[in-house]
């Protein structure tokens, strides 16, 4: 299997190498993309990795959305390309308005690094096709600001359109409606707080992250084949 994956590196990103390894181990071809570039290389998938882009100063993700590369990321998803924002990447996507809601401090006011259990609420997306609806995935979280929030109206609309993709079985951070990951209305942009790249190897305790990354690769290789 192949699939070209562009991993955007912001100053302060720190999970880019982990994403690179996870995607490469799954047979994809990852390349690093500098945030200051204005054009994306020829890629099928864009990854906004975890970390602390621009130090997460002011607000998590607040400055990264103004990086030059972000308009190219917007056009990429506008033309049907897949984008996944993991942790800090999810925060950036929300700040950029590419996904609804915002991420607040965890209710426990502590940073949390632990493996969580997630329920696949929608297995019909390009990011979860390898899963069954209701399947439980074990994937680690690693954040201080993972407490997702949106208005009641927005939530109702997201639920109706199947945009809530992953929910926590044991809500670790106070996230509204236990939400761990959501997609945009087009189904091309996925943001989630858990780190699938940290769960792609039995040696590390779980391979469930490969369900998500692998689904994306399935999607883009199918598209290329057609």
């Amino acid at each position: 299997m192949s699939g070209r994956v562009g991993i955007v590196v912001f100053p302060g990103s720190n999970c880019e190498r982990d994403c690179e390894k996870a995607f490469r181990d799954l047979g994809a071809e990852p390349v690093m993309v500098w945030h200051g570039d204005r054009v994306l290389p020829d890629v099928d998938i864009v990854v906004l990795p975890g970390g602390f882009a621009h130090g997460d100063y002011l607000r998590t993700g607040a400055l990264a959305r103004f990086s030059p590369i972000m308009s190219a990321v917007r056009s990429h998803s506008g033309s049907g390309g897949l984008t996944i924002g993991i942790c800090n990447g999810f925060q950036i996507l929300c700040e950029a308005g590419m996904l609804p809601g915002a991420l607040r401090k965890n209710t426990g006011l502590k940073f949390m690094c632990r493996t969580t259990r997630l329920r696949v609420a929608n297995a019909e997306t390009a990011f979860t096709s390898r899963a069954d609806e209701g399947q439980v995935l074990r994937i680690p979280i690693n954040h201080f600001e993972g407490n997702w929030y949106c208005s009641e109206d927005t939530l109702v609309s997201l639920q109706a359109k199947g945009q809530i993709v992953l929910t926590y079985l044991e809500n670790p951070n106070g996230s509204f409606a236990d939400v761990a990951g959501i997609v945009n209305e087009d189904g091309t942009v996925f943001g989630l707080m858990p780190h699938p790249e940290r769960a792609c190897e039995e040696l590390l305790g779980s391979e469930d992250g490969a369900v998500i990354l692998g689904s994306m690769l399935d999607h883009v290789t199918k598209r290329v084949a057609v």
Partner: protein
Amino acid sequence: MAFLASVNVMLKEGIADPQGQTIERALPALGFSGVEEVRVGKRIRLLVDASDEHDARRQVEDMCERLLANPVIESYEVIVES
């Protein structure tokens, strides 16, 4: 002309503020009773070059909309001194 502006960014009413709640719970233990509605926000200080106070305020409000506050969860208040 330079204007000193301050922006108070607060979580919107109705959005849970665990930091504020923690402080509120801690105060009685120190003997401060009758304290309610503790909310934690942040204050940003800027020196803005503008033609007049109105212009300074307009600029800072624009900054708030675009960067300094997240309208999904935060509200802001701009104070301009000459």
